[in-house]
């Protein structure tokens, strides 16, 4: 599956920013089609993010085949709100920054460093947690089998 990055247009009525991998999608109908892709798995998986209690907080959610990330940009929209991005990311945590940079540089935007540090740390922690569970499960099962043989 491909990485997808979405940024809402700065002003209502303008075309939204959408990248599939690092390629910007400019065709409006194509953007809508890709954004609607979320519907395909609806019912089976819930793709929505729980609303955070804070005014802004980064969100990372595990979804099948990747993670859904909401992070902050350095720019503001036409209403003065801090802009954010929504990203479906399938790559390794260490490449997240370079992926975002490759997309955002095309539209003259940049990510908030603090936001990315938080997201990267969460992804790395999750990665280690996964490894721990694998190793622990393997050790436990080995112990049970060896004990019974």
């Amino acid at each position, binding site marked *: 599956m491909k990485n997808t990055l979405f940024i809402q247009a700065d002003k*209502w009525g303008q075309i939204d920013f959408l990248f599939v991998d690092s390629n910007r999608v400019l065709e409006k109908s194509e953007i809508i089609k890709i954004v609607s892709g979320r519907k395909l798995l609806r019912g089976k998986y819930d793709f929505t993010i729980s609303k955070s209690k804070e005014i802004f907080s980064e969100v990372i959610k595990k979804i099948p085949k990747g993670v859904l990330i909401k992070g902050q940009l350095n720019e503001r929209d036409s209403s003065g709100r801090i802009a954010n991005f929504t990203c479906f990311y399938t790559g390794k945590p260490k490449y997240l920054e370079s992926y975002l940079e490759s997309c955002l540089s095309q539209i003259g935007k940049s990510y908030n460093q603090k936001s990315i540090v938080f997201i990267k740390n969460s992804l790395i922690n999750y990665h280690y947690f996964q490894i721990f569970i694998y190793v622990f499960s393997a050790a436990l099962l080995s112990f049970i089998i060896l004990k019974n043989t």
Partner: protein
Amino acid sequence: MLPLLLTVLLAGSTGFFLLKKEGFGFWGNEESKKSEGSPIKEIRLAILGPSSSGKTTLFHYLTEGKILKNPDPTSLTGEKIKEKIIEQDNKRIKLLSTEDIPGSESSIMAYCENLIIKSDFIFFIFNCYLFQIDEKYCLTTKAFIDFVFRHNNNKRVILIGSHVDKLHNQQDSENSRRKDTENIINILLPEFEIDKIREIELVNLTSSKEISNLKSMLFK
């Protein structure tokens, strides 16, 4: 060697399925489902409108009772609003779980229809200041309202003009509010039947009194 290999494979696959499962550990969304004794009216609410019109502020007020100052834009995927029982003047209604969707054009096209079909009460919120001064904003908003009316299947739709404070600054009065309401109705009238746009309110969402009037509409 073979038993060990099998063990590792089995453990690996168990861990894999555990971790892939939606709602695992701290990644999950746990929705509280408290059962209530007496039957109360249930409403699935949709709050629709262009970006930065006040959808999140209104949702936050209805569910948390507080007015958000400068909320961040809603993410593309939408944000889950949990089921909640709300009260006003000793009346109670249950707001069923719904979604706060972003107001960007592509997300509207992608999600809106489904949300309208699922809901039984719709607040359509737009920036009434921009609606009167920005022609493009006005046109795209009217197209959006038309989209809602074409899909709402006679469900109740209340139009809300937000950011009314930007229209009058300090000199807000009943008269000027009425005048602006008439002005907005006149802009809408060529394209919409009067019956459809009869329920229209201009509000300042930063005023707790005005936002609570919107809440009371849910109880009528």
